[in-house]
Structure formats: structure tokens, C-alpha cells
């Protein structure tokens, strides 16, 4: 151990840190948990999926180039356009932003890694396996073919009997695990793993954007996950949630999907806007104008974007008043979006702008995104929306927003951060013609598509008659599409050439003033040899001076000890150091866990339902191995962090990153529960064929026992923590917690068994779903309680090391509330449907 920065040379410090933080070679690469490695892998994988989606787009344009085309038939065309949309939304845009966030965030914040490196790796493997399932299905000719938003009843079992829709529902849900884990990790990393002194008013603007976006993901993805699970349950077990002949409603799917789907647009745009807010000040040579105003605007966009979802459903038969709410919110969101655009323009206007390739691509962003925004305001107006609904005008608008709001900024970001990724400079020979081909080709393709749409061409049709007179517009669109594709090919070639043959770059080639440029380029695995003390806003720094000083070990934690991978945890607001966060070393566990979940998904896909329980058991065991690998059997004294300061190790503080991660996970879980109860209420109020002729009954006594046992389990868990902190053994209380959960599970199982036929009507199906969700929480509570018992019995807890039990306690508390809410909802569902309560 070497704990004195004065005793160690920068080279030795580098070697010691690299020994701890580097990813092992060979097969060990599969055990990578490092954010730099995984960020790059995310980005490369997302670009591979983007290329596949792009090839599919070319096939679409080839098919639509002329009327009456026989290039591909309607069945294949359905798969092509469905996969194009699904790949671009779920396998390209979100993972690409995740990759950028994972790669950049710790470097922007002055940390050595993300808060949960194993979760990063787990999310990556879930993404790869989930995406691969979709691609393999496409190659096998059984890709989803019912549209990327999977409307029912088209995608219900009756009209889509093959496994095509199951591939989407299971594969995309698998990928969404990656998105949710990234959301939790980004939130905790931004709030807890900043450099000392980087108080919340000094954070780089991109950290604000990513923080707010991650919260949107936390609340936006659960409704889609729930919808996907319900639709898969309908397809697999005939539970009629979306079947209007048995009390379901296809509009429920639309609500759940678009509750996710519209925030998704902003989830994609805001990280790109964060990147724009980083690049423009660098090239304008002026700090960002309106830093605080932009934060207010982004918060407003985040909330308002959750009030727009019904504008995708304006034509389904909704009261005028309801239309007005969503129309107003849809128009309103343009204001905070415009505030950001004006702030960027003001930054350029106040500065001494210099022109370079990233700015060229940002120019493309301004033009394309603003056109997309304006057509968005047009579509927000109900009368126009009625006219343009489901036409190619909407397709054109969507591409202007997403390509303008994400692809152009990401291309700019690629050129901006390429010297950071590779340590090489751009020579710009191909980037300019690539831009003009992409920009020109894009506008040729999609601007004309507005006109095609206004002439009445519906979206998703595989062909059209010559009499429609849409031929020349479509032909020119197709030519534009191929020009754009050539532009992207040039971009790839340019990046490869620069990465391979570019001239070595000096540190901070753009003279940026943010912290990521204080690392070596390309960065080392640990990012910073020592962590900086930030004394000004994080976009007013001097990376040229800061970098060498940090490499010398002049900052915090400029040493190694105990073979630990350490970074600092700070107070969320003031960034005062509060704990030393010890991060896990490289491990294959994330890979094995994702493989086990992949096996579970494949079992469901091929309808081996009983066999699927085996990988579930493996997943539980593997997750327990994750948890078992952390912690300590002895109390650790406060640790030196440098600069004459000390801090506790993270498992000995009250609210370390893992405590917050559980809290935010439970927030997302709460959205799942709320969405399910909303679904039950929606069906009761809106769906036809209610109340059912024979309603399913709710066994009140058993359900009341479940509630009482769950509350008692939570109380026992809390009691155990209290005893531990008082110096007594928590084992008896933990055992009681476990037993009470078992009682609650048995009671809920009795309640579920009381539903004689859940396929008869949506009321019974919904009752089963509500009680099943409660039972799932209790079952996980058993695992938490059992793990707590094992940790207590083996000396991993003490009055100073109560974290394991307190994290379990969060779950037990939440479970008590969820069981109560689910049981009350179930009883009301039975009563409201005229069912018995016995």
C-alpha cells in the first residue's frame, strides 16, 4: 500500500492504478466492467444496429420508389418497416446515448467510473442479447411485422399467431432492462460521484441533461414494460387485457405504449441537446448563455413531455376537452425547447465563433430540427392532425425531429470527442462531403415526404397505385435516401481512417474548458490518477493545467490501497466528500446473469414455460453472488482521501450510492404498480362489456392476511435494523421478516387460486395481474430477507455496517405499501364488477 502522494512518482501511480483498473486481456475482455471500455462497446454496437436499420430503410425506399412495386411482398415489407423502426428507436438511439453517457459522465464529473460498474456491464449484455434475438429472428424470417408500436388487436394472438410479435415483446423488454439499469446508474452517478467541490450549481450542463433524461427514463419505460408483459400474457395465456370481446380494450395498449413513446422522443433528444450545449461554447469561445435558464427549460420539457402522449391518439374518438389538454401541452413544449435553441444561438452571437467540422454538423442540426419542431407544432393542432394522421407527413415530421434532434448532434459529437476516444486528430477530408450528402440526401428524402403525406399517402403501405400520382415524389425520396446512405458510408470510412491513421492529438485539441479533456487521450482505464478539487463552474476549467497536476497525484485519492478500486462519493448539493466508494473489479457475473435472463426469454419465446423457471432460479443465485461479493466482515476506520481529509468507506455511511439506487429503482417500480392500477381503472371505465356476466371474486380474508403479514414483515425488518444499530443481533427479526413474507406469499397464492378462470374476462385477468404483482414483490422480499439473514449470521453486519439490512428494509417497506395498494385495488375491482368478496 502506498498512501502518501509525495512518495510516489506519476509513472508508478499510473502503473499501480492500471493494475487495478485495467480490463484483463483475452477472454477476460468479457469480464469488463470499466466505463470507458463499455461506453465504447455500447457506441459501436449501437452503430452496428444503426447500419442494419439503415439497410432496412434502403429496402423500404427501394420498395416505395415506384408504384405497384413487386420488390418485396407485403409480409416481408411488414417485417422490414417494423424492424427499421424498432431497431432505430430501441437498439440505436437509446443505447447510443447510453454509450456516450457511460463513456463521458465519470470524466465530466471527475470520478473514476460510474456508480455501479457491474450494472453497466449487465446492461450492455442485456442489450446485446435482446438485440441479437431480434436480428436473428429477422434473418430467420420471423421478425415482428405489426409496426414498431405493436398496436393491438393486430399484434394480439388472433391476428398475429406466429412468434413474430413475441420476439418484439420479449426482445425489446430484455433490452429495456438495459435502459432502466442505465437510468438508475446515471442518476446515482451524477448525484453522488462528482469531484469534491463540484456543487450542483457547478455541474457541467451535460450532467444536468443526463440527470433529467435518466429520471424521464425511470418514469417513462415502466408503462411500456408493463404493457409488453400484459400483451405477452394475453398472447401466451389468453388473458384478455386488450380483447374488447372479453372486457379488454385495444386502446389500453395505445395509452401504455405512448405514455412511454412520447417522452421517448425527448429522452432521445435531450442527451443530444446536452452534447450540443457542450460543443457550442467551445466553438463559440464563450461560456453557455443562460445556464440556469436552460436547466429550468429542460425540467419543463421533461414534465411536459409526459403530457403529450394522447396526441398520437387524436383520431381514436376522444372528447374535445381531452384533446385540448394534449394539444395545449404539445404546443407548450415547443417553448422550453425553443429557449434552449435561443440560448445556443445567443452563445454563438456573444462569442468569437470558429468553424470546424462539428459546427458544420450542428448547422445541419439547427436546420433539420427546427423544421421538425415546426411540423410538430402543426401536428399538435387537432384539426391539422386529423388531416395528416397516419400519412407520410407524420413519417417526415418524426424523421426531422429524430434525425435532426439526435443523429446530426451525435455526428457532431463523434467528430468532437473522436480525439478523446482515439487520441488522434481529424483530417476532415471526408467529413465535409459526408455531411453534404447526409444533409442533402436527408432533406431530399424527407422534405418531399411531407408533400407525399399531404397528398394523402398513408404510412406503412407496401405499395400504391399509379393513379395516385405519388410516383415522382417517392422516386426522388428514394434517390435522396440512397444519397444519404452513401453519406453515412463516407462518415464511417472517415471515422475508421481517422481512428486508424490520424495524427496523434495533443490534450484538449478544441481548447474546451470541461473536465473530460483533463484526462489522457485516449483515456486510461481509471480516468483520473487523482480526483480534482473543483472551485469554479465545470465549464470554466483549464484542462491543460489540471490534467498534468491530476496525473501527478496532486488531487484526492492519488494513491492505491488494499487493492481497492476507489472513487469519492459526495454530498448531492454541496459536493463535500462524504465517503470512499469502493468499486468492484472485473467479473464475468454480469455476462452470466444476462445469459441466464436470455435463456429465460428464449424459454418464453419457444413456450417452454415450466422450463423457464430453471433460468429464473439461476438468475436469483447469480444476483445473490453479486451481492455476496461486496462488503466486509470488519469495521473500517475512516480512510485518508488526501488533502488532509478523511472519509468513511461507503458501506459504513447512511446513504451510499447503493441505497439511492434502491430508492430510485423502487420509484420506477411504483410507476409499474400505478400503471397497472390505471389500466384496471381504464378498463372498468372505458372498455366495453363491463361488468362481466360472472365476475371473479376476491377472497378478502386471505388478502387481508397478506396485507397484515407484509406490514408486519416490514416492521420486523425495521426492528432488526434498530436492534443492529443498538448493538444487538438482528437475526431473530430478520427470520421473522422472512417468515412473515412466506405467510403473505401463501395468502396471495390463495387469493390467486380463488380466481377460477382468468381468461373469461379482463376483470378476472386484471385481478390476477394485480395480485400476481403483489406476490412477485413478496417473493423478492423473501430473497432480501434471506440474504439479510445470511449476512447477519456470517458477520457482514455491525452497528456501523447496517447497509445490507437497510437496503432490504427499503424493499420490505415498499412491498408492504404495494401489497396494500394491490389488495385494495383487487377488492375494488371485484366489487366494481359485481363480484363477490368473501
Amino acid at each position, binding site marked *: 500500500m502506498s498512501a502518501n502522494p509525495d512518495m510516489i512518482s506519476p509513472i508508478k501511480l499510473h502503473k499501480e492504478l492500471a493494475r487495478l483498473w485495467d480490463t484483463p486481456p483475452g477472454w477476460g475482455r468479457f469480464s469488463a466492467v470499466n466505463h470507458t471500455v463499455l461506453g465504447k462497446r455500447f457506441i459501436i454496437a449501437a452503430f452496428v444496429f444503426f447500419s442494419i436499420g439503415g439497410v432496412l430503410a434502403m429496402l423500404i425506399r427501394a420498395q416505395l420508389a415506384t408504384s405497384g412495386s413487386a420488390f418485396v411482398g407485403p409480409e416481408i415489407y411488414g417485417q422490414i418497416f417494423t424492424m427499421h423502426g424498432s431497431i432505430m428507436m430501441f437498439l440505436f438511439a437509446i443505447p447510443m446515448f447510453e454509450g456516450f453517457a457511460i463513456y463521458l459522465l465519470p470524466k465530466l464529473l471527475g470520478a473514476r467510473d460510474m456508480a455501479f460498474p457491474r450494472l453497466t456491464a449487465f446492461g450492455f449484455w442485456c442489450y446485446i442479447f435482446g438485440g441479437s434475438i431480434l436480428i436473428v429472428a429477422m434473418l430467420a424470417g420471423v421478425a415482428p411485422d405489426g409496426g414498431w408500436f405493436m398496436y393491438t388487436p393486430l399484434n394480439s394472438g388472433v391476428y398475429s399467431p406466429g412468434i413474430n410479435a413475441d420476439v418484439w415483446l420479449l426482445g425489446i423488454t430484455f433490452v429495456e432492462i438495459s435502459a432502466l439499469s442505465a437510468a438508475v446508474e446515471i442518476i446515482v452517478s451524477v448525484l453522488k460521484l462528482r469531484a469534491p467541490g463540484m456543487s450542483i450549481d457547478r455541474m457541467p450542463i451535460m450532467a444536468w441533461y443526463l440527470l433529467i433524461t435518466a429520471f424521464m427514463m425511470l418514469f417513462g419505460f415502466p408503462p411500456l414494460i408493463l404493457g409488453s408483459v400484459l400483451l405477452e400474457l394475453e398472447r401466451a395465456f389468453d388473458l384478455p387485457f386488450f380483447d374488447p370481446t372479453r372486457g379488454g380494450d385495444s386502446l389500453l395498449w395505445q395509452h401504455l405504449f405512448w405514455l412511454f413513446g412520447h417522452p421517448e422522443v425527448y429522452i432521445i433528444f435531450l442527451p443530444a441537446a446536452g452534447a450540443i450545449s457542450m460543443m457550442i461554447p467551445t466553438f463559440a469561445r464563450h461560456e453557455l448563455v443562460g445556464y440556469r435558464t436552460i436547466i429550468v427549460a429542460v425540467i419543463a420539457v421533461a414534465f411536459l413531455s409526459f403530457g403529450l402522449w394522447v396526441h398520437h391518439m387524436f383520431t381514436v374518438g376522444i*372528447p374535445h376537452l381531452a384533446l385540448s389538454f394534449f394539444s395545449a401541452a404539445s404546443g407548450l413544449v415547443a417553448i422550453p425547447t425553443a429557449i434552449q435553441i435561443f440560448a445556443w444561438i445567443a452563445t454563438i452571437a456573444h462569442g468569437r465563433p470558429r468553424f470546424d467540422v462539428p459546427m458544420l454538423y450542428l448547422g445541419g442540426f439547427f436546420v433539420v430540427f427546427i423544421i421538425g419542431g415546426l411540423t410538430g407544432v402543426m401536428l399538435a393542432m387537432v384539426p391539422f392532425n386529423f388531416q395528416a394522421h397516419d400519412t407520410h407527413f407524420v413519417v417526415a415530421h418524426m424523421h426531422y425531429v429524430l434525425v435532426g434532434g439526435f443523429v446530426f448532434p451525435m455526428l457532431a459529437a463523434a467528430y468532437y470527442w473522436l480525439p478523446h476516444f482515439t487520441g488522434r486528430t481529424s483530417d476532415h477530408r471526408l467529413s465535409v462531403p459526408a455531411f453534404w450528402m447526409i444533409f442533402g440526401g436527408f432533406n431530399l428524402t424527407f422534405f418531399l415526404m411531407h408533400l407525399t403525406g399531404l397528398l394523402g399517402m398513408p404510412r406503412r403501405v407496401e405499395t400504391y397505385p399509379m393513379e395516385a400520382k405519388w410516383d415522382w415524389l417517392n422516386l426522388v425520396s428514394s434517390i435522396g435516401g440512397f444519397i444519404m446512405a452513401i453519406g453515412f458510408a463516407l462518415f464511417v470510412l472517415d471515422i475508421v481512417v481517422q481512428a486508424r491513421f490520424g495524427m496523434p492529438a495533443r490534450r484538449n485539441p478544441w481548447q474546451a474548458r470541461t473536465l473530460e479533456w483533463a484526462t489522457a487521450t485516449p483515456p486510461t482505464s481509471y480516468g483520473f490518477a487523482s480526483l480534482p478539487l473543483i472551485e469554479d463552474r465545470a465549464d470554466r476549467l483549464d484542462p491543460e493545467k489540471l490534467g498534468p497536476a491530476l496525473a501527478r497525484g496532486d488531487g484526492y485519492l492519488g494513491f492505491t490501497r488494499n487493492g481497492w478500486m476507489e472513487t469519492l462519493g459526495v454530498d448531492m448539493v454541496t459536493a463535500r466528500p462524504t465517503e470512499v466508494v469502493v468499486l468492484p473489479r472485473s467479473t464475468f457475473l454480469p455476462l452470466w446473469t444476462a445469459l441466464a435472463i436470455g435463456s429465460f426469454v428464449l424459454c418464453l419465446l419457444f413456450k417452454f414455460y415450466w422450463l423457464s423457471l430453471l433460468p429464473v432460479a439461476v438468475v436469483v443465485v447469480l444476483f445473490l453472488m453479486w451481492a455476496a461479493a461486496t462488503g466486509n466482515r470488519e469495521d473500517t476506520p475512516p480512510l485518508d482521501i488526501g488533502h488532509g481529509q478523511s472519509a468513511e468507506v461507503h458501506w459504513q455511511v447512511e446513504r451510499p450510492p447503493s441505497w439511492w439506487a434502491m430508492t430510485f429503482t423502487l420509484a420506477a417500480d411504483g410507476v409499474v404498480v400505478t400503471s397497472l392500477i390505471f389500466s384496471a381503472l381504464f378498463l372498468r371505465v372505458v372498455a366495453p362489456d363491463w361488468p362481466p356476466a360472472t365476475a371473479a371474486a376476491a377472497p378478502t380474508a386471505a388478502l387481508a392476511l397478506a396485507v397484515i403479514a407484509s406490514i408486519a414483515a416490514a416492521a420486523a425488518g425495521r426492528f432488526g435494523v434498530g436492534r443492529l444499530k443498538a448493538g444487538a443481533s438482528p437475526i431473530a427479526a430478520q427470520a421473522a421478516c422472512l417468515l412473515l413474507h412466506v405467510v403473505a406469499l401463501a395468502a396471495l397464492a390463495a387469493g390467486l387460486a380463488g380466481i377460477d378462470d382468468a381468461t373469461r374476462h379482463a376483470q378476472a385477468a386484471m385481478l390476477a395481474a394485480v395480485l400476481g404483482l403483489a406476490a412477485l414483490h413478496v417473493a423478492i422480499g423473501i430473497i432480501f430477507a434471506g440474504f439479510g439473514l445470511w449476512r447477519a449470521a456470517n458477520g457482514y453486519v455491525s452497528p456501523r455496517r447496517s447497509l445490507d439490512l437497510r437496503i432490504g428494509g427499503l424493499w420490505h417497506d415498499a412491498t408492504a405499501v404495494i401489497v396494500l395498494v394491490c389488495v385494495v385495488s383487487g377488492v375494488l375491482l371485484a366489487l366494481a364488477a359485481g363480484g363477490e368478496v368473501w
Partner: protein
Amino acid sequence: MRAHRSIDLPLVAAGFTIWSIGFVAVYGVLSLGCAAGWDTVPVLGPVTLQRAILVALSLGTAAATAAVTLLLARRRPAATGQGGPTDFLRIVAFYTAVAATASVLFTFSGVAVLSSCVP
């Protein structure tokens, strides 16, 4: 630098959280009212039970965001210079609440006049 309280950070979302709750409540009650036939129950001249409840909910949401805005205005520092993270958060919370109040008024502006249920 002013000492911060743990509430300062979540308060930046206070205004729009109320907007969200109001939005869900008004939209939910609109659906419930249509299903229950409240739009055919007169309470005062041409004003139906449905309309009265929706207007009351909208005004209540506006009043709540306005009240939060006023409370946050009191917490806002007098000067907007380099006041540290607490002052920064309080200013952001205030302006976000102002935006939320304006959003409530605009979003629910049709509640008094537009037809509330599909005939």
C-alpha cells in the same frame, strides 16, 4: 454560502409535480365523469356536474402551483449573483414553478368551454 436543506434539490420539481398531478386528476375525472354521466347532471343553469368538478380541479391545480410559486419566491435569495448551490437551487425551483403555473393555466384553458364527452 447558505446552508442547504435536503428539500432544496427535490423542490426544483415541485411546480411541475403539481402540474402532473393536476393533469392526471383532470384527465382521469373527465373519463370517470363521462362514464358516470356527470355531463348530463345540471348543477347551476347550463353548468353540469362534470363541468363544475373539472373547473374546480383546474382552479385548484392553478391555486396550488401559484401557492408553491409564492412560497418559493419567499425562499428565493434577494440577489441572483454567486450565492452557492442552495441559492442556485432555490432560484431554479422558483422559475420552474412560475413555468408550471403558466403551463397549468394554458393546458386547462379549455376546461370551461369545450364539450367534455363524446356524444
